[in-house]
């Protein structure tokens, strides 16, 4: 079991790393940088990373957080991995829809449904 960095709780289900955001706000620039480094570390430590990000605790996020997620998605794709997002609350989902990033990311309503979509 990997050690969970600040702002994140990391568990493993099969070969999928499940990352839960432990704070309700992914706004702050410093936090976002730290989260980006932590997620990047998970991606770089795996040959074909399979990552599930669980947003169940997240009430706010900013455009900087969206940029961080796109960066992680790109790095995962470079390593032929897969990224899934799950548990996004309606208000946060609207942010993804407004920015049309719901077209870029694979988003499932729940963690279990997201797990079922890994190929």
């Amino acid at each position, binding site marked *: 079991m990997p050690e969970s960095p600040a702002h994140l709780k990391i568990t493993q289900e099969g070969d999928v790393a499940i990352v839960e955001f432990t704070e309700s706000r992914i706004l702050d620039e410093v936090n976002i940088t730290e989260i980006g480094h932590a997620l990047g570390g998970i991606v770089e430590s795996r040959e074909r990373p399979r990552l599930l990000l669980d947003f169940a605790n997240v009430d706010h996020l900013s*455009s900087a957080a*969206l940029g961080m997620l796109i960066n992680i998605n790109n790095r995962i794709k470079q390593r032929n991995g897969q990224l899934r997002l799950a548990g996004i609350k309606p208000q946060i989902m609207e942010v993804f829809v407004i920015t049309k990033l719901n077209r870029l990311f694979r988003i499932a309503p729940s963690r279990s449904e997201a797990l079922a979509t890994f190929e």
Partner: protein
Amino acid sequence: MGRRLRFIIPSVFAQGQEVQKRIMAEVEKHHYCENAAFAIKLAVEEALINAIKHGNKLDPHKTVSVEASVTPTRAEIIIEDQGAGFDRTKVPDPRADENLERLHGRGILLMEAYMNKVQWLKGGRRVRMVRRNDDSPGGGCLSCVQNP
């Protein structure tokens, strides 16, 4: 009904967060509905980041001025930096297919989507945003008004 808050802060994120907290305390005091409060928090966050990072380029000698008026029915927030300004009409649409994977450039879109009115003034150095206290998910103005 509502008092006018005024702040002048250096270009430091932590100071911006304090301003955001003070504005949101006024919003909470007036019992804004959930969607309006969410919209104001997001738009103020994005506008402050724009002013501190993109406007003043994190120069601690440059300041950001903020004025906020929050009444039970509407919130008006004006944020001004000391940077070079920008032309709103030249900012690419981050929703376009060719821009979808770009890491930056969504803050303005979110501000304009969530507030009822967004005006870019003084060549882009000043933004004036208004949000009514109603429960529509986004203010949905998405039609910026740019003045010289």
